[in-house]
């Protein structure tokens, strides 16, 4: 390697480290301040705390009702993402296998939902009509609906790559449509299904507008709303707010680190064709 090229390599390594640092600084800031005492955290800085106040976390869990909202978020995102995969896969499968004129239209109609804005006003009427307003089931249904278009899009692309011979073999062996899908096709979709599950789990975990509009009691709030409410009450206690934030984003970051391969695969699928 020529000295010039080596210089360049060193330089770009330095730049990338600085950018990575820039990306994590805000998160590190929260981590440092979460274990400070109240007075130390009034100025949010990187000064290390004199003593580690891990009690902040238990204070927050108690005052911020984090246990309840954690369970709520888990139920909302878990059930919505699970059902979303099931229904999206079923739809994507039939739409992709039987490309009649109608199905082709329905596919485009469904994925148009990726773009459409939600009309929060008229949705109130629909929620009242379906008696889902202010219910946990209502939020699960809405979360599911917001994730269906993108999930169908990803699964549709993936099913195109599952050989049709499998279906034929299944039919010859006497499978009905349900058996064919659930015991042969659905297991084959696992990689795409994991991606879809993680993406919709993260999206719905981070969402807060739908519960803000359609849930009236704080007992049913998900974590994002709980943390925002907590921030409103304890604006001055940055150490508590930081601890609260850490507990809120910890599940998301764990899921991200465990599933980052799948996330990146899903985010880039459809956008790049090798």
């Amino acid at each position, binding site marked *: 390697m020529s000295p010039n090229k080596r210089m360049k390599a060193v330089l770009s390594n330095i730049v990338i480290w600085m950018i990575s640092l*820039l990306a994590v600084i805000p998160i590190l800031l929260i981590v440092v301040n979460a274990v400070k005492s109240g007075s130390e955290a009034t100025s949010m800085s990187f000064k290390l705390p004199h003593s580690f106040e891990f009690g902040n976390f238990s204070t927050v869990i108690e005052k911020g009702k984090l246990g309840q909202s954690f369970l709520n978020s888990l139920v909302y995102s878990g059930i919505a993402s699970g059902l979303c995969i099931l229904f999206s896969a079923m739809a994507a499968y039939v739409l992709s296998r039987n490309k009649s004129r109608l199905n082709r239209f329905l596919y485009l109609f469904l994925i148009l939902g*990726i773009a459409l804005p939600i009309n929060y006003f*008229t949705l109130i009427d629909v929620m009242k009509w379906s008696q889902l307003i202010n219910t946990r089931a209502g939020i699960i249904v809405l979360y599911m609906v917001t994730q269906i278009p993108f999930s169908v899009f990803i699964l549709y692309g993936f099913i195109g790559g599952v050989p049709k011979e499998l279906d034929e073999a299944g039919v010859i062996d006497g499978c009905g*449509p349900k058996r064919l899908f659930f015991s042969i096709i659905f297991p084959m979709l696992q990689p795409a299904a994991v991606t879809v599950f993680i993406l919709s789990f993260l999206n719905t975990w981070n969402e807060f507008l739908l519960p803000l509009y359609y849930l009236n009691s704080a007992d049913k709030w998900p974590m*994002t709303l709980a943390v925002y409410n907590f921030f409103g009450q304890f604006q001055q206690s940055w150490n508590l707010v930081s601890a609260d934030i850490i507990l809120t984003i910890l599940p998301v970051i764990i899921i991200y680190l465990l599933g980052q391969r799948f996330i990146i695969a899903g985010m880039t699928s459809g956008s790049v064709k090798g």
Partner: protein
Amino acid sequence: MTRRMYPFYFIVVALGLYVVFAVVPSLMGLYLSLTDWNSFSKAVHFIGFDNFRTIFSSEENYLHGIKNTVVFTVATIVLKTAIGLLLAVLVNKGIRFRSFHRVIIFMPSIVPMLVVGIIFKSIFNPEYGLINEALRAIGLDQWTQHWLTDIQWAFKSIIAVDVWKGAGYIMVILLAGLQAISHSYYEAADIDGAGAWMKFKAITLPLLMPALTVTTVLNLLYGLKIFDTVYVLTNGGPGYATEVVYTQVFSQFSLGSYGVGTALITVLFIIMAALGYFAVKLMSREEQNG
């Protein structure tokens, strides 16, 4: 066999939910935006295009919100694409711990915006915030600003936070695009004696076009729907300086004047449906070619 083995009822649940909870409300909105619908009285009267006249009248603030939304969208598209592309090119070659950096740089985009907003409220704080403290520490006192309460800076700060959060996502998509470009093109160009800039312009950019199209569409759809970044950082303030369409929708919601709010969403709905139509066409065309 096709019809029997791929029954229509497999589609029904997904389609039904989508129609009832996404399409029907939008269509109801088309009608109700022409009424004086509000939360105080049960009666709904047809008032023609009055709500739209309100929105597009220069006496009200809505045009300002629409303008801000457009500015936000254009600015984030340009900045995220430029930074994302730069990062992708940088990470693509000659970097140690490449996947580590990729994981880290992507991380901001999975943190909830509500939380990011709270963190940046502290970072932007004029007295004890990280940015102003850092500026003071290196002696640049005159550069310190009231980042979120100064009319000159508030909207720029919002855009900066959004770019901080979103650039990594764009980088990951573009990086995948870069890695799909065959090395042989660059080798051929080397033999022909092309420089780095020439290679970038004549090989990388054209072959990256599909990925760039996708990131632009994604940024566009995201930008027009922007809400949470503004809501949590300034909630439209100072005054109305940083209002965007969705924060205005939100205030109409709390005021109870559903007619105007619905009309605002309907404007957005029509624009998004048209853009979405082209995006969907684009995506399905690529599929047929691929």
